[in-house]
């Protein structure tokens, strides 16, 4: 497979996953804003959302005050914001267009249709578009594309690169979503365990489509430790950092077998898996949730770099 093709497949799925996360963040902010003001009110919550994406400065430069309508536009429609849903879907479609020959017609059809629908949304009167419609559309669309990939793509190297993109991006995004909690959800220590705190944790779980799953797994009792365990260390939860790491390992191993040689990327992935598989919730809190998550974001970025060096530049002999 052409290195450029592999790179486009890898980035296509990263953008798709990223668009989903942005939509989930938008949803998270929207739900939080329905709460009575707590320690700075909705401003504080929206700023946390933007901070977790690393785009607060860019937003302030362009729009100034954190007006909800503007944040919505910024996160969904704004093409100057590289992680807005519109930017991500457009970029993914561009990646797909470049590698059409590596995609089944169903996958292309799903991606291209989503792009056409996005354009139709862009043309609609903004006041007729509420946040839930936008986020529902995004989640539905990316699920459709992922479903088309799962059910129609050959299980070849291209499929592995697509899944690597999903897994690397998803881990990064879970870490960022969880980090929002650090920024906003605890305005002061006194709130821990309060009704407000629980509501916010619930919202976070909801935004990850993990609310019910959490109840099943932990018996409904909300606690910071259990939620952190769920999102970071539980191998059953599809978005946990551990699950993503397992997937990265699986797909890299497949690539190693397809190409008949192992790679430095595999070693890096194994090292990270060793840590996550052994880690306990206490270790995470000892390190500090925010510090741990920041380190994880950088670990996964490192993995992405290893994959790129090995396969996506065409320079590794």
């Amino acid at each position, binding site marked *: *497979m*052409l*290195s*450029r*093709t*592999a790179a486009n497949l890898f980035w296509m799925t990263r953008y798709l996953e990223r668009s989903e996360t942005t939509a989930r963040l938008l949803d998270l902010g929207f739900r939080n804003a329905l709460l009575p003001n707590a320690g700075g009110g909705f401003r504080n919550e929206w700023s946390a959302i933007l901070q977790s994406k690393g785009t607060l400065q860019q937003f302030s430069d362009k729009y100034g005050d954190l007006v909800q309508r503007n944040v919505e536009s910024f996160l969904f429609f704004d093409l100057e914001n590289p992680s807005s849903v519109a930017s991500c879907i457009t970029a993914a479609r*561009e990646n797909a*267009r*470049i590698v*059409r*020959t590596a995609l089944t017609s169903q996958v*292309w*059809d799903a991606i*291209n*249709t989503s792009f*056409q629908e996005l354009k139709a949304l862009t043309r609609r009167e903004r006041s007729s578009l509420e946040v839930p419609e936008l986020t529902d559309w995004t989640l539905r669309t990316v699920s459709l594309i992922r479903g088309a990939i799962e059910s129609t793509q050959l299980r070849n*190297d291209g499929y592995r*690169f697509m899944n690597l993109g999903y897994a690397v991006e998803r881990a990064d995004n879970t870490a960022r979503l969880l980090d929002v909690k650090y920024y906003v959800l605890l305005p002061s220590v006194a709130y821990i365990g309060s009704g407000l705190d629980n509501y916010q944790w619930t919202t976070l779980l909801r935004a990850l489509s993990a609310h019910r799953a959490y109840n099943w797994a932990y018996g409904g009792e909300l606690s910071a430790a259990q939620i952190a365990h769920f999102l970071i260390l539980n191998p059953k939860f599809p978005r946990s950092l551990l699950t993503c790491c397992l997937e990265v390992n699986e797909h890299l191993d497949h*690539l190693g077998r397809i*190409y008949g040689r192992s790679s430095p990327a595999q070693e890096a992935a194994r090292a990270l898996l060793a840590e996550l598989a052994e880690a306990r919730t206490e270790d995470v809190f000892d390190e500090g949730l925010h510090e741990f998550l920041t380190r994880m974001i950088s670990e996964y970025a490192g993995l992405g770099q290893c994959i790129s060096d090995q*396969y*996506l*530049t*065409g*320079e*590794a*002999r």
Partner: protein
Amino acid sequence: MAEPFFNEMYDASGLRAPYRMLEGWHRNMPAEFRAIKQAEAEDLFRRYGITFAVYGEGGDPDRLIPFDMFPRVFAADEWRRLERGIKQRARALNAFLSDVYDRGEIIRAGRIPADLVYRNEAYEIAVAGFRPPLGVFSHIVGIDLVRTSADQFYVLEDNCRTPSGVSYMLENREVMMRMFPHLFQENRVAPVEGYAGLLKRTLASVAPAKCDRDPCVVLLTPGHFNSAYYEHSFLADLMGIELVEGQDLFVDGDFCWMRTTEGPKKVDVIYRRIDDAFLDPLCFRPESTLGVPGLMNVYRSGGVTICSAPGAGVADDKAIYTYVPEMIRFYLGEAPILENVPTWQCAKPDELKYVQENLAELVVKEVHGSGGYGMLVGPKSDKATIATFAAKLAANPSNYIAQPTLALSTCPTFVNEGIAPRHVDLRPYCLVGRDVELVPGGLTRVALTDGSLVVNSSQGGGVKDTWVIAEE
């Protein structure tokens, strides 16, 4: 009252045979149903991503070429004659190319002026003396034809470099079969879907002699911003070959390689959809980033085949065009089956004089122009336009040729009020490798504006599915 133009469906004696089945079809089609089908067709094209960007207009890169649902039909015997004529022409053009980069017999024999060939901008000195595998230079020859009566076809121009549009031939059929399956059950329409297989076989047949395995064929595109990118990816996909850009290829030693996830892989045949000038910055334009440095050295040492061969453009030059019937006689010893449009060479003083005196009646084109740009359609232009053009012509006469305004045939076309005759042309795609092949069909372009004779998609033309009724 007789129409001034030949109508391919209804002539003086009424409904023509090949269109018999379509008469009832369009008559019985309610307007609402038609609107639904038209919308469905557009939706299908958009979903397949078949779009076309127009150079120089900026505009929407996802613009669709308008598709007209009314098919254009050829009878089996009409097609038989066209096929022989097209293949004959493709063979002669290749014989000419092979000759002018070698001994130049046709020039020595005084049948074509030496200056016209050797001083031609499209003559590529870098490949003089090099014989590509099987002596084939132009592997895909697109021949633009127009019709003026039941029996009279003219060749408008030849395209020996990288003729585009074949994806429309294939997709138009796909969409029509999906929307009107019963038409295909009732009519014996010859299939065109074998094109991709034939193309791949043609390309593989010209692999270098050095290649001792199943040849690795790739399609080289300028990239996804190119207006024909859709076609490039479509063809690569149908043939099951890699779609590469210049950055994916590199030269090492005597061969050309592509960058893959498993390291470098050797390439044997490059079906390029970029112009000669961009192929190799070391040989042609040094500032180009689309090509592959060193590629021409590998090509000339027989390490890789480039299709079409660099330099093939000299055969489809508009000034050389006049001599194609001469080539057919010279190389094949046959009488030309398809006629040229009578052409005046503005480079020749007495012909220039005639052109200048009759500008209002003629079509004047740039020798190297394409896509309907920079041309004058005399009868459709006002005095000021003609005067401006006359000045350009006087300044550089050898840059122009002139032809009479042809009475292009018309084919029924859906318009707002129902159906109406619109002018059409035809581009079939002839493949030349070990064999000369032609699928029964081609791209019919239609001038959608009432009275317009310009069918180029860049000038607002549309396309139709082209049927050839299968032999009994």
